[in-house]
């Protein structure tokens, strides 16, 4: 079963958005994404998007000119969407927005007026439909948390704040631990990462609970999330410039914060940094050394140990202002769906939304003759086992028996680029199969005798597998369709020495082959 941490690029929003400065993003219902951006005119604009499971990301609507100049954007969703921002006079303001179910109508409902002072480094979370908390750096340079009540009319009333309970900070990340508790991950006055826990009562009382002291070193680009197992995960650019994730356990009373583990040397130098929790791990979105977006997927076990699952390789271009938002996909979802969306600023300065999901091969099975040396089920399971080792799912989309006696034996010629008349006739039997779906035809034999053949015409990706093929021939031929070549290694699926001679089953696929498979347009995100 493919994990949601195996990421392949699904699609993007193309040129549906203009130039932007700051970006904040939050998930809405029904695969909707809400972005809050600072436009080229420096004004705040909300744009809604549909994260389609297939095809491009579609733009649903925007807020027009309903907001003024703003920067330091953050967004959270409760009963309404709330954007926290820095106004043109440098003050913190919260603005609430109502977005209809279609995402096309975005209406400004109210704001916080002049209830807050000068602020930068703004973040916001919702603790309940009507209770929000902001964290910011005050004009004096100190961390301050403020609680807010979202009123029925959309206005936001300041409830309380953290007073002088925190010191100087130069970076702030805020995350929700529970309905009455938040954590701030900050860069303190010494330049070190510090995590501070806070209680927030239903009435908005904010009280400092505990902190990590000097348990973490120097850090910048600080982010935090709570993973599915309840651990607090911080993500930073460490003193050496490398990405480092640290796991923390917060005690039930919120007062003790214990460092559990970190990602060690498993990641390299980064620029921008973002972090999101998914159902079975966390994903870092970073600007790699070459300036391009890279997603790195991590598993985090119950003891806080990190295992790097993989990364998105070179599937995206230059990016900054990277925001990650979890998509609607569940673990093991059988059909296409979005695991993750990135909202980012491209090299041209434009907003782009990219969708990601686990890669899967969509396979249609058409049977002229059932295999006998190994059953079709054994071949499919063999392929699934091997592909799963590199995070690929295999989705059997359809099965069909074809009554085509003349094509039970198929001329395949040299099986090297050119297709024969008989192959063309066989491959014409796609029966509404999509152009990026692969069809496996099970036949009696080929002429000349091969285990299988992966030569097929453009737009009709197909493989032939014969009755007496090995357990691994199906996966081997699909590997060819995905761009893999023969190798001289009998431990590997793509051995040129015959998959019947594989010495250490299941055979291997190596990382370079995984990249080739992901790059294939025929491996689609699930």
């Amino acid at each position: 079963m493919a994990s949601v941490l195996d990421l392949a690029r699904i699609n993007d929003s193309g040129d549906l958005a203009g130039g932007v400065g700051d970006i904040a993003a939050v998930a809405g219902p029904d695969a909707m994404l809400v972005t809050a951006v600072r436009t080229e005119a420096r004004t705040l604009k909300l744009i809604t998007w549909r994260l389609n499971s297939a095809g491009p990301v579609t733009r649903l609507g925007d807020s027009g000119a309903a907001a003024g100049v703003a920067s330091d954007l953050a967004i959270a969703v409760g009963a309404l969407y709330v954007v926290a921002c820095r106004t043109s006079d440098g003050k913190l303001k919260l603005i609430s927005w109502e977005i209809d179910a279609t995402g096309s109508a975005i209406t400004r409902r109210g704001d916080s007026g002049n209830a807050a002072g000068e602020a930068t480094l703004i973040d916001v979370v919702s603790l309940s439909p009507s209770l929000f908390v902001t964290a910011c750096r005050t004009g004096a340079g100190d961390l301050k948390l403020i609680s807010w009540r979202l009123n029925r009319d959309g206005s936001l009333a300041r409830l309380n704040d953290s007073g002088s309970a925190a010191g100087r900070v130069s970076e702030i990340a805020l995350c929700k631990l529970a309905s009455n508790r938040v954590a701030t991950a900050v860069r303190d006055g010494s330049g070190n990462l510090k995590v501070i826990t806070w209680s927030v009562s239903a009435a908005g009382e904010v009280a400092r609970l505990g902190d990590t002291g000097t348990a973490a070193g120097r850090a910048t680009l600080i982010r935090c999330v709570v993973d599915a197992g309840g651990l607090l995960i911080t993500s930073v650019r460490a003193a050496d410039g490398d990405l480092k994730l640290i796991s923390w356990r917060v005690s039930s009373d919120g007062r003790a914060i214990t460092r559990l583990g970190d990602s060690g040397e498993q990641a390299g130098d980064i620029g921008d940094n973002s972090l999101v929790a998914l159902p079975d791990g966390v994903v870092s979105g970073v600007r790699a050394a070459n300036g391009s977006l890279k997603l790195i997927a991590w598993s985090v076990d119950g003891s806080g140990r990190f295992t790097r699952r993989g990364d998105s390789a070179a599937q995206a271009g230059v990016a900054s202002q990277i925001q990650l938002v979890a998509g609607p996909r569940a673990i093991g979802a059988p059909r296409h769906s979005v695991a993750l969306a990135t909202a980012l600023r491209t090299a041209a300065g434009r907003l782009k939304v990219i969708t990601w999901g686990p890669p899967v091969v969509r396979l249609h099975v058409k049977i002229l003759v059932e295999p006998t040396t190994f059953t079709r089920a054994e071949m499919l399971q063999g392929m699934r086992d091997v592909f799963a080792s590199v995070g690929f799912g295999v989705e059997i989309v359809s099965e069909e028996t074809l009554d085509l006696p003349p094509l039970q034996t198929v001329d395949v010629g040299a099986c090297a680029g050119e297709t024969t008349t008989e192959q063309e006739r066989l491959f014409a039997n796609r029966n509404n199969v999509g152009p990026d779906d692969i069809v496996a035809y099970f036949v009696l034999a080929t002429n000349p005798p091969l285990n299988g053949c992966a030569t097929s015409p453009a737009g009709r990706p197909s493989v032939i597998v014969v009755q007496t093929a090995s357990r691994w021939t199906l996966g081997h031929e699909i590997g060819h369709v995905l761009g893999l070549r023969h190798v001289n290694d009998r431990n590997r699926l793509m051995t040129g020495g015959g998959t019947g001679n594989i010495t250490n089953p299941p055979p291997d696929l190596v990382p370079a082959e995984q990249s080739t498979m992901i790059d294939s347009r025929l491996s689609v995100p699930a």
Partner: protein
Amino acid sequence: MALTMNQLRTLLDPDEPNYTQIRALLQPDDVPNLEALATGPDLMLASKAAYALSLIGTLPARDALARLAAAGPLQVRIAVASGLPNLRGLDVSALVTHLLADPDFNVRKGAIKASRALKLTALAPRLQTIAASDQVPALRQLAADALDELR
């Protein structure tokens, strides 16, 4: 010098053997080992060995193919029929005639195509019978097309 059994297996075991390369490596004295592989229990290897026999294109190879056509399993008989066009220049009428009467239509299909490829006009009466009465309609058409070309 004949290739060893292991050398032959190395050539034939790939999922997609390179028969062009194999043809260049085979010698007439490889017939016994190939026939042994073609009568072995591994049907995938056996069918590839049978086809490789046809690439040698000698009378002993043809005779080995005739024995396989008479007693081999279906996959091997199909491979024999597939290899018939490689026997150009040899008298293969008897072998093709035998395969045209094979109980399996996949073998008959290969033999019909070989009759056409080898321009075996002497087999026209047999092809006429198939065109008129084979139980598989597609083979009747295939035989009729072959007859048209032979005439």
